[in-house]
């Protein structure tokens, strides 16, 4: 299989006023083309740091990340990013926001128009093209930001808790939506979340990180049918996997505590 993303022993240390903070330590990961990988871990374990390292904007202190056979050292047109917040430009309307990346990249918008229109339709934003962000709900804004990330047709989609700021109902809706988009577009997706339920529902593979400094704890292959059957999140086989991952995280925390390495971070398995 072709490996779209290879992460080898990456670490990131921040210089803060209170001395260096080791956020990520020796994390490694491999993602195959067209795969859907989720990364979970306790709050503050360095998930955002890791994902931002992959964007090329926020370099790792050591180790290396390779995306599509090239070392990540700057942002790339083959990578789309969805942030925690929609981060739309308030002075542009929805369609102008979606065209923003194409504009920056100097691409011919005409060539992408029909594909983008399709995407807009598939997330139910058609008819809102001329609305400004302030006229859109949080869920609609985040949907727009996903289409924006897909507008220039990148092979890879990096998502950092994209639905974390949304309410529970909208979040579940968005989870279903992102799966539909994934099945339709065949993108390679790395999805960061602290909700284990979400990770299991979405991904083929779940990487678990330890509490800070975040490093590899375990990898779970999610053996649930594709496309996910209706109501799968209410089935025992689903709960079992979720419980297994939660057990692992609790175990990690207990271990770190015993070794006196645990740096009290508010964490609960009930997320």
């Amino acid at each position, binding site marked *: 299989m072709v490996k779209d993303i290879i992460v080898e022993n990456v670490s990131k240390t921040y210089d803060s006023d209170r001395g260096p903070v080791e956020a990520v330590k020796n994390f490694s990961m491999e993602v195959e083309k067209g795969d859907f990988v989720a990364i979970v871990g306790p709050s503050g374990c360095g998930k955002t740091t890791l994902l931002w390292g992959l964007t090329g*904007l926020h370099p790792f202190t050591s180790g290396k990340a390779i995306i599509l056979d090239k070392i990540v050292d700057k942002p790339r047109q083959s990578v789309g990013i969805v*942030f925690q*917040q929609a981060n739309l430009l*308030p002075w542009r309307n929805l369609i102008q926001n979606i065209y923003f990346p194409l504009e920056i990249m100097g691409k011919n918008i005409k060539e992408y128009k029909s594909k983008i229109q399709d995407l807009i339709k598939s997330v139910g934003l058609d008819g809102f093209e001329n609305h400004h962000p302030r006229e859109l709900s949080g869920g609609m804004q985040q949907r727009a930001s996903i289409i924006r990330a897909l507008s220039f047709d990148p092979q890879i989609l990096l998502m950092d808790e994209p639905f974390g700021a949304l309410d529970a109902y909208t979040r579940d809706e968005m989870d279903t939506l992102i799966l539909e988009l994934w099945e339709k577009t065949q993108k390679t997706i790395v999805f960061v979340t602290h909700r284990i339920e979400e990770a299991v529902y979405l991904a083929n593979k779940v990487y678990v990180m330890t509490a800070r400094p975040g490093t590899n704890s375990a990898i779970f292959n999610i053996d649930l049918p594709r496309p996910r059957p209706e109501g799968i999140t209410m089935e025992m086989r689903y709960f079992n996997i979720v419980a297994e991952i939660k057990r692992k995280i609790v175990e990690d925390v207990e271990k770190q505590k015993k070794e006196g390495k645990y740096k009290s971070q508010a964490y609960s398995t009930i997320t």
Partner: protein
Amino acid sequence: MDSYDKELEQKVPDFEEKQDTHSKEISNLNISSAAYSTQIRGWKQTVGIIAVAIFVIGLWELLVRVLNVPDFILPPPSKIIVALVTSFPNIYQHLLFTLAELVSGYLIGAAVGLIMAAVLTQMPFIEKIITPYILILVTTPTIALVPLLMLYWGFGIGPRIFAVALATGPMVMINATTGFRRTDLAKIALAKSYGASTFQIFYKIRFPLALPMINVGLLVGGIFGLITAVGSDMVGGKIGLGNRISYYASLARMSNFFAIILLVALIGISIWIIMTIVGNKTTNWSE
């Protein structure tokens, strides 16, 4: 390479939607916030405002006539209007002259102020060194320099344009600087993730973010320019609305005097209205 790269290396931007506080942000003057608090008025308010104006003008007319106040102390509004209309062919050239100095000085000052703000905010060190001098220019009434300028340069339009530019420029610059400093790292990171150049970041992100404050600067700068234009006319030479003010005052022709004051007030109000419209058109997204 620009300064954000360094910041982004050490920090993931927080995505807190920045509340738009332009209208509340302290600018140099309170008029600036007045410009942004102009909302669409209901008809009741409009009627109320007009009623107050009619009442005040009517009361003025009535008191002056009933108390037999002599014209050289306070003429009634009706005489001021008559004076304005009858002497307009005469005043006309003075009006044009003052408008010319105001508009040219304003355009020069605003352009220089804007460019300096845009460039200097890109160079934090130089900005810090220059800012105190700009503050001196903002706080010192430029009008005080006009006698000197005229001494060097004669009584023509040149020194007056220069004075207006010197009054407008720093006002525009200091407000625009505040605007350009409102960098939103999350939005810059967004643009950078698509490979945006420094220039693209400037005109696609930083400039729109700064626009509300730039508009404030352009409004305040315009009002300061007007004050300086009229003041310069008073200092020397024989032309301009300011000159007419001194002239009519010295002859105690108060109806004519007030007619000029009325014209100056109308120019000021026009500046305000124009800039409010520009502000609403360019930053309608911000509220």
